[in-house]
């Protein structure tokens, strides 16, 4: 058959392609697509600061891998807004090292595949990652993060994330947090040796990590624990609460999300099983006030690595609350605002320290971060980042619910750690 004109065209395209492949491609060498990979020349606005990928003469780019469309979207939104607020204030005051801080936000929707592509997209262009939502996402990417040497602050606090060179848990880990909380529960419930306490926890990293702390604290207090493992997607808490009621527990600890804490409060109330409940700060959201305000005000205590946003004795916190509402009117002041602001604060302080040391490269930023032994963000506690094997603080706050206050929470006990907290052995990670 004589080749038709279509065939000839295809031939031409093929030949052209073959030629282009062998010719020089336009693709940049990917190892230096970071923009400003060369040290800035003396005399440039940055002075003699050493820079690497993500830092130009006028800008510092930091990455944010958030969940803005998936199950953790409310948290991701608050954290992103709070970080934006912090860096806007920094930029308004002249930036860091004479440079403007630019946030490169990517939304992964809590999907491992999207998270990996988003990470690949930004990892070459930023100096570090000041927000990464989702412990599953962090663990999935941890090998790459370590390899790329990007200082990364996850919005997850499992002690299994400790021990990494560049991944930094921003506050007390879940296990230590609940050990501190357990002491408050035992003191106020009160629990005596021989009593039983119920523990409802999700079958994931968060729940497993918290369970370690509960087990340790209960053993030390001579209290026995009745476990109720639930799935992170479960919302009906009737079975778990009924089991705990028939086991005769004196108090309940819930290591789960607001989706479970709310139902636990409602079910215990309606079953006439009005025992004290202890939860993590990630288990509370102001939205719960609409369904279970009364039982929560009466019986829920929260152990938290950050103070309540309504705290009036801490000027930095009070200013954060009013600034946030001014910038994002109508938003809810949840604990995501606090933890986002804290993460941005840590990152900002590290950038300032790296600038002062004259090294704004990725390695310089990590080195500056590890030299911080008493960082005070005005949140009522000091953070020590010198050891990557330990959480930066062993201290937590005790919060109670008060629906009349902004954010629905009040601090009832300031930052403190219980005597047993430091003797607890953190799980060994490899």
């Amino acid at each position, binding site marked *: 058959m004589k080749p038709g004109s279509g065939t000839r065209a295809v031939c031409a395209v093929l030949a052209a392609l073959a030629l282009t492949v062998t010719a*020089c491609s336009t693709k940049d060498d990917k190892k230096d697509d970071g923009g400003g990979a060369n040290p800035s020349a003396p005399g440039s606005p940055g002075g003699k600061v050493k820079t690497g990928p993500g830092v130009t003469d006028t800008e510092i780019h930091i990455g944010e891998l958030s969940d803005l469309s998936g199950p953790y979207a409310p948290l991701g939104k608050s954290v992103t807004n709070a970080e934006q607020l912090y860096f806007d204030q920094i930029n308004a005051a002249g930036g860091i090292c004479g440079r403007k801080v630019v946030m490169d*936000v990517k*939304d992964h929707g809590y999907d491992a595949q999207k998270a990996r592509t988003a990470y690949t997209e930004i990892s070459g262009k930023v100096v570090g990652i000041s927000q990464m939502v989702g*412990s599953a996402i962090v663990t999935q990417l941890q090998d790459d993060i370590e390899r790329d040497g990007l200082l990364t602050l996850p919005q997850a606090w499992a002690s299994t994330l400790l021990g990494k060179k560049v991944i930094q848990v921003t506050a007390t880990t879940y296990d230590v947090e609940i050990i501190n909380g357990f002491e408050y529960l035992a003191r106020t419930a009160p629990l005596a040796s021989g009593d039983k306490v119920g523990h409802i926890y999700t079958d994931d990293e968060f729940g497993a990590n918290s369970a370690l702390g509960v087990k340790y604290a209960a053993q030390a207090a001579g209290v026995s624990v009745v476990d109720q493992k639930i799935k992170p997607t479960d919302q009906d808490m009737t079975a778990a609460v009924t089991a705990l009621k028939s086991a005769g527990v004196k108090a309940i600890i819930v290591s789960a999300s607001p989706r479970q804490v709310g139902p636990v409060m409602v079910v215990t109330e309606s079953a006439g099983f009005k025992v004290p409940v202890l939860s993590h700060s990630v288990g509370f959201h102001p939205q719960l006030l609409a369904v279970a305000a009364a039982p929560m005000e009466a019986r829920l205590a929260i152990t938290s690595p950050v103070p309540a946003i309504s705290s009036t004795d801490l000027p930095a916190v009070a200013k954060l609350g009013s600034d946030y509402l001014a910038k994002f009117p109508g938003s809810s002041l949840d604990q995501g605002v606090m933890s986002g602001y804290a993460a941005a604060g840590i990152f900002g302080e590290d950038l300032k320290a790296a600038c002062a040391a004259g090294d704004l490269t990725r390695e310089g930023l990590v080195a500056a971060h590890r030299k911080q032994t008493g960082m005070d963000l005005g949140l009522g506690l000091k953070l020590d980042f010198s050891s990557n094997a330990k959480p930066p603080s062993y201290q937590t706050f005790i919060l109670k619910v008060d629906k009349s206050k902004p954010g629905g929470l009040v601090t009832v006990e300031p930052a403190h750690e219980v005597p047993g907290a430091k003797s607890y052995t953190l799980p060994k990670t*490899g």
Partner: protein
Amino acid sequence: MSDRLAALLRPAALGTLAGLVVLAALPFYLTDFWLLTGLFAMAAALGAIGLNLLSGTTGQLSLGHSFFLAVGAYGYIWFAGDDGRSGTHDVTGLGLPTPIALVAAVLLAGVMGGLFSPISGRLRGMYLGVATLALVFIGEHVMNNATTVTGGYNGRAAEPMTFFGFTLTDREPHLEVLGIEFGAYERLWYLALVLLVVGVVVARNLLRGRPGRALGAVRDSEIAAAVMGVPVARYRSAAFVVSSMYAGLAGVLLALVFGRVIPDYFGLALSIDYLAMIVIGGLGSVGGAVAGAAFVTVLPQLFAHYAGALPLVTATGTDGIGPQEASRYLYGAAIVLVLLFSPGGLAGLARRTAAPRRRAAGHGATSRPRTKEPQGADT
């Protein structure tokens, strides 16, 4: 001789060849972001071909495809991995050479599919779909609790593929081709491309030969198929085994691309994505499955990447509709449009646009006796 040359010069064959050349050249042009998206698409294409053989050709609805993907991924990790520690768990492994681990993982997925066949042999349609749903939930539980194999919630790192000292990583050995640095994604690209081509050829040959016609007969009427001498039960379970092996291969590829595999990924949503791929691509068509996989994997990324340039779309992290949300609307609209205007999926669309052109070109292409060419020569 001239006959064979003519067959090679047929527009369809040339088009396929051109497509392959383009695919082989892409690593020289694409950045890591797009390479990674392409790798996910190729892995998805392999999985979709498998599901298509099962659901599209044989008519057995499966919601458990993500389970077999997980078997492939974790199977590879376990076969290739060594004893050691991952997160807070001690893990074990067989430490096999990686190419052998790949084959073993695919076979393991096939065995799992075979083990499920007594159930698939007794259930039909929606009932089978719900039964396969159980696999996803069992898989979820096993992945989180069989920590010595999977590493639990933290997942477990996958050993990089190594061929006689040549690893598919960024280093070892350092490789530059025509001035382009060949990192992990560039190297994996060619492995994925080879696997995909093999997968497509095998599936096509399978469908065009005796087994394909038998499977089609089973889908249309089991009684009629049995009357014609097709051993229905055997073909139904064989379809499950082959489909699971494709899923297993896709799982291995995903493990290599991810570098570390976590249980969260292999949920029900993933199974649904694969069903979407074969429906959008066109049930029963191998090319359609590949196109559907590309559609489902690449389109949302494409939209998310460029939606920022659209009016009314705001930057990520600010108020309003972000690129990710916008991409979902666009993606949803694209699915509806494809299914509305081409019920046969992308494959039906391609057939319909190709048909008038062929008629216009005269008898040549359509009336050409196909028996002369070797099976699958046009892939």
